[in-house]
């Protein structure tokens, strides 16, 4: 038995080395190296997007074969779905316009300050600032639910009551007046992620000679310096950071549901396009409409990224 095993092992390793040899000789290793990634990339990223675009032009309930319906789903969304046009789309735009650029500017300013202090202190601060983004929204929702809890055990409510500012606890997470604001605060809190680290790394590697030359050429203030020297010098990292912050912002769609514990969120106050997609696709089985929404959202994301690219290009 033992002999048999060693023999098979030897045979297998023989076969493997023969295959390797064959591939090396025929210059096929390039494809061997690419295949695993490409296979998974195409299967789980490219095909879903293509299928999604396809379904968006059909009437599809998930059971019967989809039937072609042209751009009816899009027309429906833009003209008949009142919730989408009046609540979900404005919510999404408000949320992403505050959290996206807000988190991005915050990331830059913090990285800019961090890059000007000594290594050890910088490491500690960077770790603290980065850590909320590690587990992202959902795991952290638990602590925010306790902080904003609608009873006297909620930290904020307790603070307000103890200081006689209110008598009855406020239902922060169930109230349409507060939910969106809290979503934005929580998302900003956890928005200093990979992009922030990239910007920081970029700043630590800028060429200092650029600055001396610029001041000799008549640069006057720190503000001028940031816009004329620093940002162009780390433009590539800025762009990477921008893309990461856009993706982060649009991925954070579940935060409203996680905080309020309900989908739809109270009076749809925290409803974003992602939740709306879920609503159509999973609860109502109108997959065509859900797919059309997905396509619209993908276009919005692409549009934002292109916008950033153009803004940063003009800095040249």
């Amino acid at each position: 038995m033992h002999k048999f095993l060693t023999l098979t092992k030897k045979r297998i390793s023989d076969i493997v080395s023969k295959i390797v040899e064959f591939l090396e000789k025929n210059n096929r290793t390039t494809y061997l190296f690419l295949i695993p990634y490409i296979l998974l990339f195409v299967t789980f990223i490219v095909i879903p997007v293509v299928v999604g675009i396809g379904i968006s032009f059909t009437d599809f309930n998930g059971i019967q074969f989809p039937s072609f319906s042209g751009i009816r789903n899009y027309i429906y969304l833009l003209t008949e779905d009142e919730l989408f046009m009046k609540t979900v789309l404005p919510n999404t735009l408000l949320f992403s316009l505050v959290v996206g650029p807000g988190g991005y500017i915050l990331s830059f300013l913090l990285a800019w300050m961090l890059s000007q202090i000594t290594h050890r202190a910088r490491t500690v601060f960077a770790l603290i600032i980065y850590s909320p983004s590690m587990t992202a929204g959902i795991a952290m929702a638990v602590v925010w639910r306790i902080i904003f809890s609608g009873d006297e055990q909620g930290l904020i409510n307790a603070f307000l009551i103890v200081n006689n500012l209110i008598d009855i606890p406020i239902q922060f997470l169930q109230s349409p007046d507060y939910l969106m604001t809290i979503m934005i605060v929580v998302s900003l809190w956890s928005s200093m992620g990979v992009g922030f680290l990239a910007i920081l790394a970029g700043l630590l590697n800028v060429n200092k000679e650029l600055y001396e030359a610029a001041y000799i050429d008549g640069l006057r203030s720190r503000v001028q310096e940031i816009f004329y020297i620093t940002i162009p010098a780390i433009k590539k990292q800025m762009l990477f950071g921008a893309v990461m912050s856009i993706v982060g912002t649009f991925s954070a769609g579940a935060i409203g549901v996680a905080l309020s514990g309900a989908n739809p969120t109270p009076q749809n106050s925290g409803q974003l396009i992602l939740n709306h997609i879920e609503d159509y696709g999973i609860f109502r089985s109108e997959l065509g409409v859900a797919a059309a929404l997905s396509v619209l959202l993908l276009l919005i994301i692409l549009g934002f990224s292109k916008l950033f690219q153009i803004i940063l290009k003009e800095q040249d």
Partner: protein
Amino acid sequence: MALGTNFNPRRFDKTQLKFYLILIPFSAFMLLPIIYIFTTAFKPIDELFAFPPRFYVINPTFENFRTLFVYAEYGLPAIRYLVNSIIVTFAVVTTSVLFSSMAGYVLSKKNFRGKKTLFEVNKVALMFVPLVVMIPRFLVVSSIGIVDTLWGHILPIIAIPVGLFLVKQFIDQVPDELIEAAKIDGAGDIYIFSKIIIPLIRPAIATIAILSFQATWNNTETSTLFVSVENKQTFAFYMSTLTSSTNTVAGAGIGAAAALIMFIPNLVIFIIMQNNVMNTMAHSGMK
């Protein structure tokens, strides 16, 4: 003294004080919720119900962790979910690192048809938000037949466009002469990749490992969408049901304990690898 901003200063001087003045209160604010998770996780039940709630804990206890793991009120004991998460995370991180560095190597150092297209497509895919196409993704996953298996957590998230992007940018820094020299000595791609490239790109590998760790360990979507069998779901998902279904106060301690278990591995891994990450990020530039 040099003109302009003094980036990456060697030592402390008074001009840096103004930054500390802003950074200290700001990071305190960032840190408070995380500290609150720690203290809440160790609070006994009477302190959880105390009014006004305290930010700190007086009699720390492991009661919440015990309840989480022993007392299976919400179906399966937490340990089952935790084991699933560990298996899935390990599988994703190892394959993800291997596949992205393999693809990154050829994308950076070899010439083949479609190379530019592949890189461009991958760059657009950096903006990919998986949740946006959750329904077609479900259709794909179910047509492959991996619904309700652990594969449903693993396969869909191995390919990370950011990972390939970062590792490719990093391998671009490896001098071509090194590879040419090895080729003259008769080395093939597999030898070059495993003996030359891999040791040189450790920082990038550490970075993809962290990114894919975070994407997997914290993932609740695969459980929501692809795997509805309870004993195959992940800890992150279990945690999200825990926090949304229970009474906030009574469940707070247990929820915080679970959040802590989610958070600690992220923190430890990042602390161990942070130098590598910063090194990789310096090459993260996009054109």
